[in-house]
């Protein structure tokens, strides 16, 4: 099983760097969509039992993260008429460096935690932590509302990877609930983005600065 899972996780880690380095919004959205599809594949592969349940979750994750949400975001991007993330708080090269540091920290942190023998040496945990941290970096250093949502999605992807290692604890109902909440969350964010665009004629969240002490 490892032989397939680890390469896929490496692809996810590479996509993290892609997300940190790209200026085009469409590329960032596509990158997170690709992560979503891979997560779906992983969910199907990691499950030990073969049955309708893992396949349903895998298909649900791939469908929502890989198709529905990206379509929502691309539409919001088109409505707003913007294509690029310009002038982020932390530049693209420094972001990549931060991403590398995050990956190193994740590898070290995962080493310090005791893991079950079947997952020893697996990239599952470090990949999860690194993806969460990447999401954090994107979320906090970018100005455009859509990019911030992509950051949030990446963060959620990282948590989803973590969830793959404790499948027995997450019953079907809860897993579907988590996916549904994610979908509704992005949907609501999409509506708010639309309103921000109409109100301020821009998706630059640095315009959102009326409220402060």
């Amino acid at each position, binding site marked *: 099983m490892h032989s397939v899972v680890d390469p896929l996780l490496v692809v996810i880690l590479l996509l993290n760097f892609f997300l940190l380095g790209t200026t085009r919004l469409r590329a960032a959205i596509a990158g997170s969509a690709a992560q979503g599809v891979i997560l779906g594949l992983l969910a199907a592969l990691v499950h030990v039992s073969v049955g309708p349940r893992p396949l349903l979750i895998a298909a649900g994750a791939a469908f929502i993260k890989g198709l529905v949400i990206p379509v929502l975001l691309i539409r919001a991007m088109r409505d707003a008429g913007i294509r690029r993330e310009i002038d982020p708080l932390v530049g693209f090269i420094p972001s990549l460096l931060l991403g590398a540091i995050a990956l190193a920290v994740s590898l070290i942190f995962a080493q310090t935690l005791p893991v079950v023998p079947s997952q020893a040496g697996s990239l599952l945990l470090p990949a999860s932590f690194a993806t969460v941290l990447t999401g954090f970096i994107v*979320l906090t250093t970018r100005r455009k509302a859509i990019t911030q949502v992509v950051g949030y999605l990446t963060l959620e992807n990282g*948590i989803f990877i973590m969830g793959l290692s404790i499948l*027995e604890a997450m019953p079907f109902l809860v897993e579907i609930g988590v996916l549904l909440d994610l979908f509704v969350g992005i949907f609501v*964010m999409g509506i*708010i983005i639309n309103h921000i665009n109409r109100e301020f004629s821009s998706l630059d969240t640095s315009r959102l600065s009326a409220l402060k002490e």
Partner: protein
Amino acid sequence: MLFALVLIPLAFAGVAFAVPSQRWRPWLLPLGGGAHLGLYLAALRQSNLSALDGWLVLDPLGRLVLGLISVLFLLSSLYAPAWLALRPGRSNRVFCANLLIILSMITLITVAHHLGLMWVAIEATTLAMAPLIYFNRSGRSLEATWKYLLIGSVGIALSLMGSFFLAYSAVGSRLESSLLFEDLIRDAPQLSRPWLHAAFVLLLVGYGTKMGLAPMHTWKPDAYGEAPGLIGTLLAGGLTSGAFLAILRFFQICSAAGEAAFARPMMVALGLISMAVAGVFMARQRDFKRLLAYSSVEHMGILVVGVGIGGTAIFGALLHLLNNGLTKGALFLSAANIHRAYGSKLAAEVTGALQKVPISAALFLMAFFAITGSPPFGPFISEFTIVRAAIFNGQYAVAGLFLLMLVVVFVGMGATVLPLVQGEATPSRPDALLTRETFFNVAPPLAFMSLVLLLGLYIPPFVSSLLKDAVATIELR
């Protein structure tokens, strides 16, 4: 029974969505709230309510929080129809439906004994709240909603990660991994320590964001400042209490694992930081609704400090949960009346409220004294209990800092509140909506204030037995 508690508000939400009448729809809120309170009182009579193989259990801690939520919702909902009647041009369909959805989901938080399910419910309240914060449809409320959504979602995501860590702490010890609360409490002594510690930190930060503990509180002043007062009540008394309940559940697991000594100092530190940050930002605060937000940050701090101190302070913290929720009801609703009477929430444009809206201003003043811990109101008793426990435990530094913060907050808050109610009345802005106080404007905050006074003078036996049972649950006796 438990299904009914969760599903009946949801059914009312469906009806509220379907009813075409803009005028009659808001009355579904008190109707749903009344049904919920009735069911809750019926549930109190039965012991050991559980459903879905232990996924839903109404334990003593849940009873306590659910009782607060139910009363809070009913009284606030009585305020809603008259308030919504001031805004006839704006559709209240989503407003009413989402309020009822929130009631249903908070109920689910209190009865969920599966930590994954609890997470789903908390996330659902966060999302259902977003359109309500945006109710005023202004650029400022938009900004508040965006910050609330983004910061809240990240906090909630961290707590999901923390829940996963907790599940993994069982896997790491070769136990059957589970997120059922009873299983975790039973297996707690064998849980893998590094995972458990990391889980608690993530959960404290994650659900602490939802509670609005500093330094994760930054969404709070914006959201409370821009949302309608009615929503402020439910945020400050309801949702934050739900998040506090979640933290308590994880604290229980930590205690069961014999790791309370790991969790306690963190909670005390985070709580004191919250109180200090609130004290600093309350001084010279020009916007009185933001002032209330910082007051909420302060009181969330008091709650976690109480639990962190332990002993009788846990009783104090749970009593303070009730006191804070009810006083916040009086504060936010009377502040909303003043806001609507002047058309402004800036302290510079609002003075002499006692002349313009005498009952609301008097209630606001009384609620200010109550929330800052003056006798004879309820918060005085609970804060006193916490300080006494700290001194009794020999934690003099904590007790001293706690008292210092209370004084700073009293001075800072008083500097804004006292000029607001006293003196000559400033003229209202032309867009002021409220011209005179009516029964439904003042009765709900008056009812909240009476309950706060009651809890200060005399704790009814059924409330004190609820509190004692809840304390026993936390201490695993």
